[in-house]
Each structure stands twice: as structure tokens, then as C-alpha cells.
């Protein structure tokens, strides 16, 4: 969707390409029509929300994945082990 027009335009350097991507972001979210301080408020809220999502996933996702794997391996492979543990 965004790659096709990007290929047709001639970007001289990476900076210009990133500026064009930022312009698309402004247009799509509708921020383009707002005043600069409103743009900054929205950008900071969005940025902090994304930062929180990344931090949370970095901290918690490995732990959750490990627990989930243990749980499922407990169901499928661990039947004899658990009954032995109970008897002991």
C-alpha cells in the first residue's frame, strides 16, 4: 500500500524518505490539520503508549511464554510424574 508510491518517488537520501513517512503518518491520523503544540501532545502520548507496550512486552512476555510452555508440557507429557509426586 505504501511501498508502491514510495518506489515511484525519487528519494535522494534516507532523511527525505523518513520525512515522507512522517508526512504520511500525519495525513493518515489527521494530525496534519492540528496546531503544532497539539501535534506534540499527540505524538508524546502515542510515543509513551508505544514505549510502555514495548517495555511491558520486554519484561513480561518471556516469563509468560515460559510458564505457558511448562503448563502445556505438564498436560501432555507429565502424567506419570505428577502421580508419582503425589504418592511421594
Amino acid at each position, binding site marked *: 500500500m505504501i511501498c508502491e508510491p514510495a518506489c515511484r*518517488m525519487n528519494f535522494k537520501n534516507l532523511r527525505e524518505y523518513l520525512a515522507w513517512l512522517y508526512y504520511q503518518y500525519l*495525513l*493518515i*491520523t489527521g494530525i496534519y*490539520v*492540528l496546531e503544532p503544540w497539539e501535534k506534540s501532545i*499527540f505524538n508524546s502520548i502515542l510515543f509513551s503508549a508505544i514505549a510502555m507496550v514495548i517495555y511491558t512486552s520486554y519484561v513480561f512476555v518471556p516469563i509468560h511464554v515460559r510458564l505457558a510452555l511448562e503448563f502445556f508440557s505438564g498436560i501432555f507429557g507429565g502424567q506419570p510424574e505428577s502421580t508419582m509426586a503425589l504418592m511421594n
Partner: protein
Amino acid sequence: MARSAAEGNLKPQLTHNGLKREDTDRNGYHNKREGLQGATAKANNMATKNGPGTSVPSRQHIPESFEQAPMYVAVMTYLGFGIVTLFGYFRDFLRAVGLEKCHLAQEREEQKAFVPLYQDFENFYTRNLYMRVRDNWNRPICSLPGPVFDLMERVSDDYNWTFRFTGRTLHNVINMGSYNYLGFAENNADFLKTVADKVHQYGAGVCSTRQEIGNLSIHEELEQLVANFLGVEASMTYGMGFATNSMNIPALVGKGCLILSDELNHTSLILGARLSGATIRVFKHNNMHSLEKMLKEAVCSGQPRTHRPWKKILIMVEGIYSMEGSVVRLPDIIALKKKYKAYLYLDEAHSIGAVGSSGRGVTELFNVNPADVDVMMGTFTKSFGAAGGYIAGKKELVDYLRNHSHSAVYASAMSPPVTEQIIRAMKCIMGKDGSTEGMRRIRQLAENTRYFRARLKEMGFIIYGNDDSPVVPVLLYMPGKVVAFAREMLERKIGVVVVGFPATPITEARARFCVSAAHTRDMLNQVLHHMNEVGDALCLKFSRRKYSSRPDLCDETDFELDS
């Protein structure tokens, strides 16, 4: 559904479930063929065979396309509107608390306890959305609105609350927004000589209404000319196009009558219908299935509570719909109106002079007898470069309107130089001034329209409407892109008209181009080149159809791919 003997050959097509556009198009194709022969048949209800019809037109059925954009576009449009609305609430809060000054009207302190005046959605929208971007509308023009014009440059220091002029003029901006279809908005001294003479003879103002002392001989001449042009018995002209609709419909219908009006009719038609006091029912845009269902129901059930028959049933349609660029299905409607004994009101504001092989409008485009349309209405603002409107039809109708129409009795008559401009433009189109300039302009307009539309479709934009209509809406969808598009095109010295929410559905904001016979191929190429660049820079090419660059060689059905 029962088959009537009269329109037997038309029934099979109308019973098809014409809900998908391409199916109705294909049905419409067959219908047009038979409708044309049926419309020109002399006998009324009893004929089962078609009479000696006029020549079957050589043109093929012109496809109309209303392609839908991919789903993500609608999602992003709603997202954009949602975010700006949230910021609107935030700013309103700041204004209410007092942290920000309110630039718009506010109630006075003593009136704060009254019913609030400025809290409805329309005021919210104006304050928080329209004001931010209103530099794209009401741009002051300081030359005549021909194919190119001059703009006064204006800037705003406080985000569009106030403007100031820098004093510079932007010269030769290409004009893609004026309804100048045949290029009669010109200031060539030779062409305007007769207009200047009439100002010498009659002055500039009339200072009276038509009924009192404002009926000038030049008005009679114009009405005779209009009647000849359209091929009807008589016509009456008015000073204002909007007032022609809104003031004459109340004279034709009243309480106890039924108006069946198309979904996308112009505000003047809706206002006239509401003022008349008749019952209004709306049928889906250009959908003959919906119209027939309503006609059947109206004839069978009659008025709402008493079930008495309706006094009159009036079908109101337009020749070309200005926001969509679609053309009315005239032969089908005439067949329906004859079957159910309804009357037809055709508003040819945009189509008179602009379509048809000699500029006579949609009746000529579909090869339909003008006597079949009961009330033909049109305006002189668009193709004739003047102002005003007309109503044409049978002599009894026009004589009745001369006495009973509000516009005829109370409104000031048309000014003489404007009348003469219409006369000279009409004579030019008809060829009565001895030159072929009129035919050249009509052909040029048709060629420009076809070229412009074909190139835009090829580039990948979504265009609505019929391939013959000189009104070309290019869909932009997202509010941010609408604004950016208008500003970018102005930077490249092209003036476009963009239309957003209240005039169009909320997800379908568009830029509306009006092709003119005065545009040269060079100008169109320049516009197309810039459209290409802006389309890439803003990612506006949403179309998912593939068009070949030589459509004449392809079969028509290739165009009917729908997503």
C-alpha cells in the same frame, strides 16, 4: 409481478434484482434500447408493438463506475475524524475553562442560562474542524473565472481565524473548479459586443418584477430562443437558478401530492419540495428498482391514512448529479412514468449545453422526445456563463407558472446584459450566429472530458460517474489528505475545489474537477502531470482496477470488474 401488455418488453429487465451496479448497468443497456423505441412510440397504453421508432442510437451503453475503496481506507478515515474530534473536545474544554480565548460567537453572560445556541454538532464541527482548514475555501479571485485565473494571496497568522492579504497576486492559476463547461466565461471584446450594446439600450438593472413592469422585449426573445433550443412549446426564465427550483416546485405541487425524489438531489430541489407541503419519499440514487417499488406502493395504497389516491405524483431527478458525475437513466424513468401515470421534473443544471451531440442535454444524449419530460428545468450559470434559470414545457404549464410562481411574481427580472449573454451563447451553440464556434466548443468539451477521465483512471485514482460527464469527482477519503491535496495543488498553480463532510458522506470526501472546453490539451496535461506527482506524494491512488491505455480496443465488460 403482473405483466402489463403495454410495456411487455421492458418488464423482464425491470424484474431482475438490480441491486449490484453492474447488473443494473447491463439491464439498463437493454432497457435503453427498448426504452428508446417505446418512448418514441406514438400510441400510449395499448400498443404492444413498438411504433416506428426514431433511429436507434449508435452509441454503446456508457458505463458508470462507483468503485469502492479498500477497507483500510475507511478505517483510516474514521480514525482521522475520531482523533480530530477528540482534540475538538479538548479545545472546547480549554475554551470553557478560560485558558483559551474563543474567537467565534458566544452567548452573553446574561444568556448563559438560556437554551444553548452553539452546542449542536454543526457548530462543534465548524469551530473545531472547519476553522482549522478553511484557507482552502472562499479564496478571492481577481480575474474572470476562465480556464486560468488570478488569485489574491492570503495568509493567516492565527491558524485561519483571520486572514490578511499580502498584496501579491498569483497569476495564471489553472482553473479546474469553475462550471465553465463551454468556455463562455470570457472577456473577448468581439464576442461581448452585443452585450455592451444591450447595456446601452436597456441599462443594467430592471427595477421591477416580471409581472409588474419588468417584462422587457429581450426577455421574450430569450424565452422564445430557449423553447426553440430545447424543442418544446414554451419556456420561462428567472433571475436566479436556485430560486427557479425552490420557488416553482411549490407552485406545481401541494398538499396531497407525492414527490419521489432521488437520494442525491440538490438542496434547491429539496427546499422546493419541502416548501410545497407535499409528501416526499426518497428513492435510491439512479435505482429504477427502488423507484418502481415506490411508484407501485404509491398507486396501490394512496395517501397515508385516508388511502385516497394521490393528486399528483412527481418524480424529481437531475440530468447530471454534480457531486457524483452520474447521469440519470432517462429512458427507464420515462417508461416508468408512463406506466404509472406520474409526472417528471428534470433538473438539467449541469447537463444542458454540456452533454448531447449538439449540447441539448440529456434528452439528446438518450435520444428521447423532449415532450415526454413534463417539466424541464435548467440553469444558465453553468454552460452559458451567465446567471439564472428556466422552466420549459407545454404552453399551459408555462402560462400557469407566469401567474402562480413566487419567483415570477416577486423576484426581480433578469438583468439585460445577462439576458443578452445567454442569447448570444445559445445562438453560438445552435449555430445561428453563422459560425461553427458552438459545435467546436461542444466537441472540444467532449474530447477533453474523455481524455481527462481516461488518463486519471489510468493513473489509478478512483473516479466516480459516467464517462460522458464533464464533472469529475476524484475520491480522497481522509480529511488530512483532502486539505493537503488542495494546498499542494495551489502551490503548483492549479485551483481545485475539494468537498468534505456536510456536502458528501463522511467517508467520501473528494476533489471535484470541472472540465471546460476552454482548457487546451497542454493545460490538461499539466494538470494531469501534477496530479500524478501529488497522487504519489500523498498516496491517493486507491484504485484496484487495471485499465489499459487504449480502452477502445477492449471489450466493455472488462470495465465491470468490481472489488
